[in-house]
């Protein structure tokens, strides 16, 4: 009687359905699309002018143009990939649609992959225009980084997904009471992962924590390119290795939290 195709394993059709769902949401709501571009632009303008001011008063910064704007753009890749991932999930809580999804054949792995895809789409919409805006305004062409940019990008996006996964696991377990984490958790990392300054600036006791974050290697690698014009393969290799570890741990934590939510019955009580 059923009009569906035979049940199988992982379904790209269902992943596509979820991506389509989020695409509809973006295309139906222009304020959401504008919001994607708004904050990266405001941030870039602020830090761009800070950099201009500092460069006028410091030969070091004058010779290492783009340290602030580059740090900001890469930070935004990290932040937006996490937020794009977690906010897409929050949309289901806000619209009280999670029950429909959890009672559909959508598998957690398919849900996760769809959130990854939509986070990249949101990232592209928000960041690409801003990177081009930085060229005439502040003379910083992030695309000029070439292959290292792709390596930085991949590492930061994976790190954003890892944190996003843990956040949605907590949301599943704790409900909307944990919503603030989706907005704020990444900012806890900001001072430790050394976006705008070298790890050596941190107190010695904090430095091991910084080096435990895959993102720290990316920001150090960016500074190496801008200051000494060298691409540190060792830093990027470590970043990839740590990302693999962090992502695996995040998947494990997510599934543990999902199982805990099923045991606690909290999947039926999503709300305040």
């Amino acid at each position, binding site marked *: *009687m*059923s*009009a*569906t*195709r035979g*049940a199988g394993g992982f*379904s790209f*059709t*269902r992943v*596509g*359905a*979820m991506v*389509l*769902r989020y695409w*509809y*949401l973006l295309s*139906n*709501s222009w304020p959401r699309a504008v919001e994607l571009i708004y904050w990266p632009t405001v941030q870039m303008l602020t830090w761009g002018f800070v950099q201009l001011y500092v460069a006028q008063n410091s030969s070091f910064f004058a010779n290492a143009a783009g340290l602030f704007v580059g740090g900001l753009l890469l930070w935004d890749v990290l932040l937006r990939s996490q937020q794009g991932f977690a906010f897409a999930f929050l*949309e*289901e809580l806000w*619209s*009280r*649609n999670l*029950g*429909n*999804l*959890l*009672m*559909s*054949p*959508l*598998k957690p792995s398919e849900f996760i992959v769809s959130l990854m895809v939509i986070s990249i789409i949101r990232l592209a919409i928000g960041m690409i225009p801003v990177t081009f805006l930085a060229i005439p305004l502040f003379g910083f062409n992030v695309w000029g980084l070439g292959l290292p940019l792709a390596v930085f990008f991949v590492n930061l996006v994976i790190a954003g997904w890892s944190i996003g996964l843990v956040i949605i696991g907590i949301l599943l377990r704790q409900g909307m009471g944990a919503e603030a984490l989706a907005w704020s958790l990444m900012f806890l990392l900001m001072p430790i992962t050394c976006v705008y300054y070298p790890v050596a600036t941190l107190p010695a006791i904090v430095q091991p924590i910084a080096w435990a974050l895959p993102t720290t290697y990316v920001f150090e690698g960016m500074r190496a390119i801008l200051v000494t014009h060298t691409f540190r393969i060792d830093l990027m290799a470590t970043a990839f290795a740590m990302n693999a570890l962090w992502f695996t741990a995040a998947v494990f934590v997510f599934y543990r939290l999902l*199982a805990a939510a*099923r*045991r*606690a*019955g909290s*999947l*039926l009580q999503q709300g305040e």
Partner: protein
Amino acid sequence: MPAAPAHEPRFAIEVRDLVKRFGAVAAVDGISFEVARGTVTGLLGGNGAGKTTTIGMLMGLILPDAGTIRILGHDMPGERAVLLERMNFESPYVDMPHRLTVRQNLTVFGRLYRVENLKARIAELVEDFDLAAFVDRKAGQLSAGQKTRVALAKALLNSPEVLLLDEPTASLDPDTADWVRGRLETYRAATGATILLASHNMPEVERLCDDVVILRRGRIEDRGSPSDLLRRYGRDTLEEVFLDVARGTRAEGAEPAAAQREEVEP
């Protein structure tokens, strides 16, 4: 109603000794029941009786502490992924995404259920549920009655063999509620689907249900067909029976409550 094929189990839903505790509270306390294929079974009970928890476990959203659930012969939640393509669910307490149009919502859910010939299926449901006037309107702009019709259309997208409904006519005006009941009767008659219906609306249960399971404090307090319950409790309406069960009172001359039956004839 259509007979079950020889290779299919007789019961669409089989629940055995199901237990779910939240801390010290037993939300579901060792219930067992079956739902024969092609029947409509009402799940009744006051607030906190365990209806929603039971439905949550039937959909695999809540893990039981003990007991087994078999749906269409498959273990739930063990074979959840296979089962959910053959089931569906509707509740007024779960919304469709507000900012998507009705058509976009049906398209997304149709793809999630991997419905074949989706455009034709959506066109069929738009006609059946009279959605044409607002199919390109955002779901958040619909009235309660329109939302219910859309939610039911979504619930029938994959032509489910087992349909779970949680108070499907709550907050609807009598005319719309009657229309919804009519659609459910038509769907069941046309497809032989099995329906489990949690409801507080006793006339609705009397009209739709072949069998009724009454829960109280996580246990099955009584069960039987609506006519059987009316006869045994010596009452004229199911609402009076419900009140007798909820308050532990009985009409004079009423028969003692039946013990939990092992199974019910379809």
